[in-house]
């Protein structure tokens, strides 16, 4: 059987996303809902299939149940293929023992045998943490043209944010001469997007060497990329100038949702030439009731909206009852906001219920001390009882 693929993708989806707190208590970060009908992993998966990459290994570890169920056989992304397609790759036991994935490089190392089944020339390493549309085939073309061993996608970030990222230093031709992980005093604004294309033989060589090194943390940013540079391998930076958003924190997740509601939105989900696919249930269209007032919002199939919704992203199967107010908020699938309840500047987790006259969050202008303000978060499967309050910046993971 000829199973050869020029390029396979490995999607690192095992991260806990601990900075999303209550929202990732029961699901891995890539399974966190976004934009009404999506989960974060829809973006890299759809990018793969739209880029002509039909073989994707999804490495899972933390809370994989929802993610496994969601990905299924990959049909939603057209990744249910006879050869290739999507494969869930959890940690496994071998004759010599069992090991959790210890870092991004180790996770790929443990799945070299999966990659070798397809005998690829190139491997794309992706993460399930970002919202963006990107044609990986363009990046692969760049990688080939430059004769690179490793190409790293980079994006210009404001200098004051640069210390959050892996920062690259590159010559005018794109060749990388230095790399610093999360520098305290950044001297470049080229941030790594955590998207790598490797020539497979080189990747394999460095992964094996990294495994031999007992002191290594087995991480791409901390070990593999520095090792490549140290050995003078050709590493190139591929500049990306589209919309790219890390949604790893409560604030950035909320921001990224709110950005979809802007008049001139940077991320066009309605562009049919680069569709973002998602695995959805078969709900009816949503009902906007007789008492509803709705503006500047996104609403998904299966909702029943009879209250006021302003500047909010409403996922599938949500109920907003008559007399309830939802503004500047993100409601995850199946959330219920009952009569007289107010949800503002908040994220409400899946299937959580905000009972009558409860109040979640507050507008920033109502808080005197700005340090006390932040997005309020109600975790998954939680009830906020009648008349109860969730304060701004508060994150609740138990019913109140």
């Amino acid at each position, binding site marked *: 059987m000829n199973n050869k693929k020029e390029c396979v993708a490995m999607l690192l989806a095992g991260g806990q996303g601990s900075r999303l707190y209550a929202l990732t208590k029961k699901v891995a970060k890539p399974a966190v809902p976004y934009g009404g009908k999506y989960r974060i992993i829809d973006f890299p998966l759809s990018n793969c299939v739209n880029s002509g990459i039909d073989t994707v290994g999804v490495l899972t570890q933390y809370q994989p149940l929802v993610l496994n169920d969601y990905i299924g056989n990959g049909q939603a992304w057209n990744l249910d293929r006879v050869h290739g397609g999507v494969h869930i790759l959890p940690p496994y036991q071998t004759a010599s023992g069992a090991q959790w994935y210890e870092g991004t490089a180790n996770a790929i190392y443990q799945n070299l045998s999966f990659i070798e089944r397809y005998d690829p020339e190139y491997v794309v390493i992706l993460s399930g943490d970002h919202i963006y549309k990107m044609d990986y085939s363009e990046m692969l073309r760049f990688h080939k043209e430059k004769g690179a061993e490793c190409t790293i996608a980079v994006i210009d970030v404001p200098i004051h944010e640069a210390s959050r990222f892996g920062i690259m230093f590159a010559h005018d031709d794109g060749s990388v001469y230095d790399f610093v992980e999360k520098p305290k005093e950044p001297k470049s604004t080229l941030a790594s997007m955590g998207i790598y294309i490797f020539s497979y033989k080189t990747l394999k060589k460095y992964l094996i060497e990294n495994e031999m090194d007992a002191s290594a943390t087995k991480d791409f940013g901390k070990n593999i990329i520095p090792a490549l540079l140290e050995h003078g391998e050709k590493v190139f930076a591929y500049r990306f100038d589209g919309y790219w958003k890390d949604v790893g924190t409560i604030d950035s997740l909320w921001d990224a949702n709110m950005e979809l509601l802007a008049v001139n939105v940077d991320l066009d989900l*309605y562009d049919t030439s680069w569709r973002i696919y998602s695995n959805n249930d*078969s709900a*009816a*269209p949503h009902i*906007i009731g007789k008492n509803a007032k709705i503006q500047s919002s996104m609403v998904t*199939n299966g909702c029943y909206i009879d209250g006021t919704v302003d500047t909010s992203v*409403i996922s599938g199967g949500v109920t907003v009852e008559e007399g309830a107010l939802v503004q500047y908020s993100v409601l995850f699938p199946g959330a219920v906001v009952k009569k007289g309840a107010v949800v503002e500047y908040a994220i409400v987790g899946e299937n959580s219920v905000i009972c009558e006259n409860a109040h979640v969050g507050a507008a920033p202008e109502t808080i005197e001390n700005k340090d006390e303000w932040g997005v309020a978060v109600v975790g998954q499967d939680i009830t906020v009882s009648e008349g109860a309050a969730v304060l701004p910046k508060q994150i609740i993971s138990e019913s109140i």
Partner: protein
Amino acid sequence: MSYNMTNVLGILFANTHEGSVPELSAKRTMASIPFGGRFRMVDFLLSGMSNSGMSKVGIITRTNYQSLLDHIGSARPWDLARNDGGLTLLTPYGRNNQDTGLFKGKLDALYSCLSYIRHTDCEYTVLSDCDLVINPDFTHLVDEHIASGADITAVCHTAEYTEEETREAACFRVENGRVTKVAIDRAMAGERTMDLNIYVMKTSLLISLVDDLVSLGKYSFSRDVLQEKCGELNIGVYEFNGFYRRICDLESYYEANMALLCHDNLSKLVNSERPIYTKDRADAPAKYGFDSSVSNSLIANGCVIEGVVENSILFRGVKVEKGAVIKNSILMQDTVVGRDSRVSNIITDKNVTIGDGLTVSSSENCPIYIAKGRTL
């Protein structure tokens, strides 16, 4: 006797009754008429069969079936892409050197696919048309059929009907649970037991009826089986009392869509216990603009609304530009209503574009239909 629902064959007739909505079926089958914001008529019966555990379903098509083929695809959305059985499209079947005229009725249509029916080797067969908006539980129907000992069980609904509603329908006289007389296409207002054109019977009985009657040149199931043989065969009835609508003209199509604006009706028809499946298009959620005002409407994913929408059904991908006002209308997939246009009591088919500053309206309960792809 033990049986399970995988031993029940479903046969759907895609084209019957399409003459009653000539506008909507000009370029498609009854089965592929869009309904309720994102569905097609066939989705209701097909989902019902799938939800009831039936694993073999044949759809008999006659003409205009391209849109249906496109919609059904591999039948995976209905979970009917199976190694064994699953969904089979039964297109008209002409034989060399013989009269290949299209079938005239259900009996000769079934005759042309008898080999399929025999091959599926199911003990029972359910026949249905695609003119109903319904969420049927066929398990219950088949159980009742077997328990009653009837030869054929017909699904019906007893209610007060208008003359219009009975004009193209069969009505039963039922005595002691048995059909004793059948009136066909006789416009008679009043309380009637109306045939909903869903029947269950043993496959062996179906095959022998088809063989016998077609050899005599007969083709109509309602006339030649129900009406002619109701003395000879024990034809029982199954009263369906859940939410349903029958599409018998453009007005009833309009009313049936609007009925879904009642949340109670919609949740009876489409719910997570018994979902209605359809082909998905990967649209983003609906987006409401800064100046939008929407009330009492059913809105599908992919819509972008910047104007005013009241009492309306918007299918996937409809665009309502700034200042536009939509009232009491059904706008099918990808309809665009331009700036400051006012639209009321209309039905637009797919891909209709209404330019800027236009007024298109009709009187209440008498919707105007605008054909697929037209630009005003």
